[in-house]
């Protein structure tokens, strides 16, 4: 009789531990998911900022860069189609095009010493290039956190929880430039290899 009682108690203890573990891992997945959502929002904030800045920049460089009409129009067109984009994949593609036309504009602006001397143009350029960086870093952070979320869903035994509650892996942001793909490998052995 005592043995059966002990066995029963043992099973209850195991069930209890399992439930606590499940809650813990579930909450972990939820926390990651919210970070992913937040990371995505952060990209949106910066993209919106870029959309707002471009018309100002174009207006202030138009006079000086009148021989670059073609480039300026391309930037405006790319900006407008990025604003109008619907859906993640579409938006990603349009934003990438905008990034490319913008970097061409930045490169061309280097040829205009008057522009570089103009304080308000300089301030706008700095703001826009900082926004470009923020977009890049926001994507990088999103990809890092999304990768962690996806990995957390796939490793065993957390995958059991992920399947039971129908967690879905999220898509990563494709980055076009090869240079941005690789994170540097971190070696803390403190000895430079010869």
């Amino acid at each position, binding site marked *: 009789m005592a043995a059966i009682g002990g066995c029963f108690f043992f099973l209850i203890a195991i069930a209890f531990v399992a439930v606590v573990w499940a809650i813990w891992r579930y909450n972990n997945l939820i926390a990651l998911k919210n970070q992913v959502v937040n990371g995505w929002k952060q990209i949106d904030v910066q993209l919106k900022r870029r959309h707002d800045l471009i018309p100002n920049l174009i207006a202030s460089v138009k006079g000086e860069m009148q021989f670059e009409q073609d480039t300026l129009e391309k930037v405006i067109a790319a900006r407008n189609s990025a604003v109008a984009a619907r859906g993640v994949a579409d938006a990603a593609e349009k934003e990438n095009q905008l990034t490319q036309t913008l970097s061409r504009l930045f490169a061309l602006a280097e040829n205009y010493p008057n522009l570089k001397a103009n304080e308000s143009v300089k301030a706008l350029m700095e*703001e826009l290039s*900082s926004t470009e960086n923020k977009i890049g*870093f926001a994507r*990088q952070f999103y990809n890092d*956190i999304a990768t962690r979320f996806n990995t957390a869903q796939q490793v065993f035994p957390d995958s059991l929880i992920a399947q039971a509650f129908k967690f879905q892996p999220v898509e990563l942001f494709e980055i076009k430039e090869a240079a941005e793909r*690789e994170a540097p490998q971190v070696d803390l052995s403190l000895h430079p290899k010869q």
Partner: protein
Amino acid sequence: MINLYDQQKRNIARTRIVLTGFILFLAFLGMGADAFLYGSGAGPGFPIATLGALCLGAFSAWWALREGDRAVLESTRAVPVDPRDPNQRILDDVVEEMAIAAGLPKPAVYVIPDSDPNALATGRGPEKSSIAVTAGLLRSLNREELQAVVSHEMSHVKNYDIRVMTVVAALVGSVLLLSDWGRRGLWWGGGRRRSSDGEGRGSGGLALFFFVAWLVSLVLAPLIAQLVAMAVSREREYLADASGAELTRNPLALASALEKIDAAAAPTPSIKQGVAHLCIEDPRGRAVNDREGAWANLFATHPPIAKRIALLKEMAYQTAGTKG
């Protein structure tokens, strides 16, 4: 091999150890004073010195944790960044970029009016942090290098290095203040006693107080040195270099920033002794940091800069290797 997460946990634990060690040691001093006051035969009296020391220790610990960052910034005479100045605007932008890359709230940004290039981070943790760079750093680095330096500081913020470092800096600061009081008070009290015999009694008591303050700080100094040694590990600089490079994906920019900082080897006068371990490179411009070995390890707060640069370049090669 340590990672950022281990380092976070280790730093939070270290802060507790440093603070508890400080309080306990003060209480121990107080117990000694009580034993002296009441003697061995007088029986148990009210342990006033023990309680006083305990309160003092607890208050300093609380103050160090709460106001330490402000004390550190004030000691370097840092001023908040001015976004109207184009160069400072860039700094402000770069800090925001790095905060986004690290997924942290943006720290407060300060500029230290000093022409020697250096940078430091302070605060309680990611939720309340500040990053300060010298005017010299802003002048001598380009945007990418500035970004690299800020990414290094952001890693200190992220892994709670700043919490340990700031607490230690604040405790060191309060003990230095105490010893300063003690020494000045002794001199002052001594002078007064000689000038007028009538007030000798009262100022004698004051002198005794200052003498005690001075003695206590004398006793505390080695403990503080021990705390600094405990809290400061050279590993943390390598780790911040590595995780900073992970944020910018650009180890070479940090390498070249360190080269420039090293080339301007002059000491940074705005940054006081007690704050040295918070900086990206030792502001005292000392040669000990350039040597490796047990003796150098005892005194240096930073690993040799040449080795840090070599490691960063190694990191860049590895990245290039996996790509090609």
